[in-house]
């Protein structure tokens, strides 16, 4: 047998089913949003499983191609602390993607069926034999190369010949996939024989090790032992790069993913805040409309604490329902998001998983949130004097204060719209809360859209400064000399050839880059203060520099100052003659005359490590064909070069940024969903409260459209007020997200808050608000006057 007080707690929820539904839905969405916090843990779990399945190496050694027989490999496997070793050969070159050539790596795997470390899984098709390749799954996902089993790939071998290799299927490997995603390099897997036929150099370029003890001291000892073992192999010329050690628990792309997750947390917290405001709203209204019932309970002997307990139990019941639905929804959302990210970013399949700490936190928030939100309202309600409580009708009277008088002055609207407008002002606190939640949603979307625009602008702006269509870069450290420049100039389709020398330097201990250019460069330089260097300064190899404003700010360098730059040849002094507002190399670039750099590095006068080439036509296919001709010409004359086509780089950058901001926007929709649930909730409560009023209006001649107009006006008022608050809120949030992006990812993005986003968001908010309130408004218009007047 249930006590009457507990029965009241339960029946208060079933009395107003639609309101209870919206309140539970709102709470469920709030709790579900906490599920997003589980994404990093679930991803970590999935990736750790992949690391185990892939047998990702603890140690990677790179070397010049070295032929190793089985005995020598066994000797490496026998090195103390080594659990397993896997050799791999590597060819870096270019493949044809249509008429264009793109960077590619072909990795040679000795035996696809018996890989000990860094396993390449055959996801579809069959393992390749000689002359056949497997394409990495990320190639197609990242839009670099889309080929299927049975098709062919045309690869330019080291000797310049083009080889057609059949594709036998699709492969999957964490390391390879990450190379595709982060470096935009096409990755193919083949046999060592295939790689050797491309590179014309037999032997292995990389050795992968799994170790027993991965502590730094043990790893260092192991590296020394490996080096000692390899020293006995004929042809070993030392490591070609620093050995790469994978930290325990690390996986390719982990730090980037964790950084990106920070943005997810910001949006999630906004979603939670919105929902808690709404829950407070709902529970406050529930308590306020029961003032007369509270009076009755007091009149028959109920004490404050007992009465408060009734409503706290109702709030806990509400919380229980919401938390249960929310935990399930949150688990689904976290799984779907993790699966999407795993597939898109890492080509990894993610199975369903639960992050129990987040589930526990979600349950606590769901159960405790509503009663905590209800406490102030309950406290107020139980303190209302008994006489006033017994006379209360539960509906706000309104119409008497300054705000109401102000609303009353709006007389130019039709009467029904005036009623709707004044109704919005009756429940001031609830209307404000609803508008605030709408503001949080719209503000979040404005901020995310602004961030997307800022990132796209930065990409475009950065690339717009580039006057070249193609960048020719030598491979292997050999500089391009005057002959190379002449060959490029003579290539049909080439309009301008601009030599450049780009080198890493340090300024005031901070990393920077020098771009040594010609006075009349194709680069579209911009000067904020001072000037560009003159022809005279170029001819006299003057030590003058134009520095970008970011690095000027961080180092304190000013116009006219002398700065000391640490170059590969030692320290060099430059006078600052100009400040540029541009953001090349994240704002860390110094522009100096190319002749000055030649003098500093004592290289030959026409040497460059980049040639910026303008073609005679901006047509993309024309640029591709011209690039191919330049590469063929230079290769035929013994120059080993790679090319970077600007329109391709820009498109890839924009696509990559777009994926990230789309993901943020999708999560931002969660906040929108909560706000719309809140708006529907508010209007449902408004209709319920005014049911008797609706009956009166219908009794004195109001038609359905009049009732519709009253509540539509109330909806529009709340939505518009929400939008007005959203504009400054969204701007502040946009600035914060840009600050976060700049500080977490070391970028240099400028805030963008386009006006057309404001217009779009206003139209969207109003449209969505009217759509979402169709049901409660319809309910209002279909009420029969008799039923409405009898409503209790």
């Amino acid at each position: 047998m249930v006590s009457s007080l507990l029965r009241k707690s339960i029946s208060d929820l079933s009395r107003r089913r639609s309101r209870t539904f919206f309140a539970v839905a709102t709470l469920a969405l709030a709790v579900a949003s906490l599920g997003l916090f589980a994404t990093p843990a679930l991803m970590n779990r999935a990736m750790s499983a992949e690391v185990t399945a892939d047998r990702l190496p603890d140690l990677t050694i790179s070397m010049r191609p070295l032929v190793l027989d089985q005995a020598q490999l066994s000797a490496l496997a026998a090195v103390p602390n080594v659990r397993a070793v896997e050799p791999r050969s590597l060819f870096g070159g270019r493949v044809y993607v249509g008429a264009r050539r793109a960077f590619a790596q072909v990795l040679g795997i000795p035996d696809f069926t018996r890989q000990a470390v860094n396993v390449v899984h055959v996801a579809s098709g069959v393992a390749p034999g000689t002359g056949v390749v497997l394409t990495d799954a990320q190639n197609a996902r990242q839009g670099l190369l889309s080929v299927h089993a049975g098709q062919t790939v045309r690869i330019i071998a080291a000797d310049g010949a083009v080889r057609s290799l059949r594709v036998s299927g699709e492969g999957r490997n964490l390391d390879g996939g990450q190379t595709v995603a982060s470096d935009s390099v096409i990755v193919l897997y083949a046999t060592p024989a295939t790689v050797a036929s491309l590179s014309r150099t037999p032997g292995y370029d990389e050795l992968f090790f799994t170790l027993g003890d991965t502590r730094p001291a043990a790893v260092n000892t192991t590296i020394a032992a490996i080096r000692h073992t390899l020293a006995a192999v004929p042809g070993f010329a030392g490591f070609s790069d620093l050995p790469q050690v994978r930290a325990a628990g690390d996986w390719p792309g982990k730090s980037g993913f964790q950084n990106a997750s920070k943005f997810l947390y910001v949006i999630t917290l906004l979603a939670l805040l919105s929902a808690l405001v709404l829950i407070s709203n709902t529970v406050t209204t529930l308590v306020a409309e029961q003032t007369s019932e509270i009076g009755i309970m007091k009149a028959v002997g109920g004490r404050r604490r007992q009465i408060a307990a009734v409503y706290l139990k109702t709030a806990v019941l509400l919380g229980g329902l919401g938390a249960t639905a929310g935990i399930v929804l949150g688990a689904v959302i976290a799984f779907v998001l993790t699966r999407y990210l795993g597939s898109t970013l890492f080509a990894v399949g993610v199975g369903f998983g639960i992050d129990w700490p987040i589930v526990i936190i979600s349950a606590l928030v769901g159960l405790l949130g509503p009663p905590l939100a209800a406490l102030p309202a309950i406290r107020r309600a139980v303190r209302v004097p008994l006489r006033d409580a017994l006379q209360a009708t539960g509906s706000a009277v309104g119409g008497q204060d300054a705000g109401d008088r102000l609303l009353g002055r709006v007389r130019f609207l039709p009467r029904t719209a005036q009623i709707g407008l004044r109704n919005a002002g009756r429940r001031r606190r609830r209307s404000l809360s609803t508008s605030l939640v709408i503001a949080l949603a719209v503000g979040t979307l404005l901020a995310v859209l602004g961030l997307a625009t800022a990132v796209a602008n930065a990409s475009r702006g950065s690339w717009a400064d580039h006057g070249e269509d193609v960048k020719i870069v030598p491979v292997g450290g050999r500089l391009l000399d005057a002959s190379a420049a002449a060959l490029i100039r003579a290539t049909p389709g080439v309009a301008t050839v601009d030599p450049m020398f780009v080198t890493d330097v340090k300024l005031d201990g901070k990393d920077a880059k020098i771009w040594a250019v010609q006075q009349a460069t194709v680069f579209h330089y911009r000067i904020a203060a001072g000037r560009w260097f003159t022809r005279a300064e170029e001819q006299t190899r003057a030590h003058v520099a134009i520095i970008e404003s970011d690095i000027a700010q961080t180092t304190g360098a000013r116009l006219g100052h002398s700065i000391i730059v640490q170059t590969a040849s030692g320290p060099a002094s430059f006078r600052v003659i100009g400040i540029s507002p541009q953001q090349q190399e994240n704002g860390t670039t110094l522009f100096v005359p190319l002749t000055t750099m030649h003098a500093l590095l004592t290289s030959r006068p026409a040497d460059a490590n980049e040639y910026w080439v303008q073609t005679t036509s901006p047509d993309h296919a024309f640029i591709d064909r011209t690039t191919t001709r330049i590469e063929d010409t230079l290769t035929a004359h013994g120059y080993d070069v790679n090319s970077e086509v600007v329109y391709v780089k820009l498109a890839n950058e924009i696509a990559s940024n777009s994926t990230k901001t789309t993901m943020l926007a999708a999560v931002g929709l969660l906040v929108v969903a909560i706000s719309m649930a809140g708006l529907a909730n508010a209007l449902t409560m408004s209709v319920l409260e005014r049911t008797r009023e609706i009956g009166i209006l219908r009794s004195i001649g109001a038609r359905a459209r009049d009732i519709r107009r009253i509540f539509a006006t109330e909806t529009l008022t709340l939505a518009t007020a929400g939008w007005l608050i959203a504009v400054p809120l969204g701007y502040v949030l946009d600035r914060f997200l840009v600050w976060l992006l700049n500080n977490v990812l070391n970028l240099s993005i400028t805030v963008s808050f386009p006006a057309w986003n404001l217009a779009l968001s206003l139209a969207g908010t109003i449209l969505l608000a009217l759509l979402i309130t169709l049901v409660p408004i319809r309910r209002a218009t279909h009420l029969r006057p008799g039923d409405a007047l009898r409503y209790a």
Partner: protein
Amino acid sequence: MDTEGMVERATRPARVSEPFIGLAGVEKTYRMGRLDYPALRGIDLEIGAGELVAVVGPSGSGKTTILNLVAGIDRPTAGTVTVGGRRIDLMSEEELAVWRGEHVGVVFQFFQLLPTLSALENAVLPLDFARRGSKRERFEHARRNLALVGLGDKADHLPAELSGGEQQRVAIARALAADPQLIVGDEPTGNLDTVTAAEMFELFKRLNEQGKTVLYVTHDRELAARAHRVVAIRDGVVVAA
């Protein structure tokens, strides 16, 4: 009915052939959760144009239900309701709303004014819904009605700034907005003191003398006695008419 101490009854107008209000075999059953509650069990009633009729009976007898059926606020479960020659039980909700705005003035016990509208705005509301005349004409008409009920100087006051009696006067002014042929009042004086109640009834009487048909529910014997006719209801049936 006890007539001792009764005040003078109003003079009943000459009866025309067709009744203004006709209820024939009317039943009304309300569904209350799992239970059916028969509020009216077969009512036959005719009221002539220009009559002043009081409906009396104990609580729950069906008095308010009759009023609601006559005003089109409720629909009968069975039977027919005819007002001014029209079968209002056959009208749709929209048609009823329009019809009410033009032909019926309703006065509720608890005034039921819109709290955010001034007295004048409450009084003009039915005309706004009926879209009758220009805005200026509507307000002028509403002002005249307010003056008629003695509240010409309180047109801009909100309901919360008026006494109970004044609020009821505004409700009556609202009921008169479209110059309806029928005025219905559900305990129109039930929430007023005796002096104010008497004043209210005088208003109703004046309206009736102008030719309007007035139908009102009351518990006040004296007020009931002043009607042309008293219809007594008990347990959902008419026991005297």
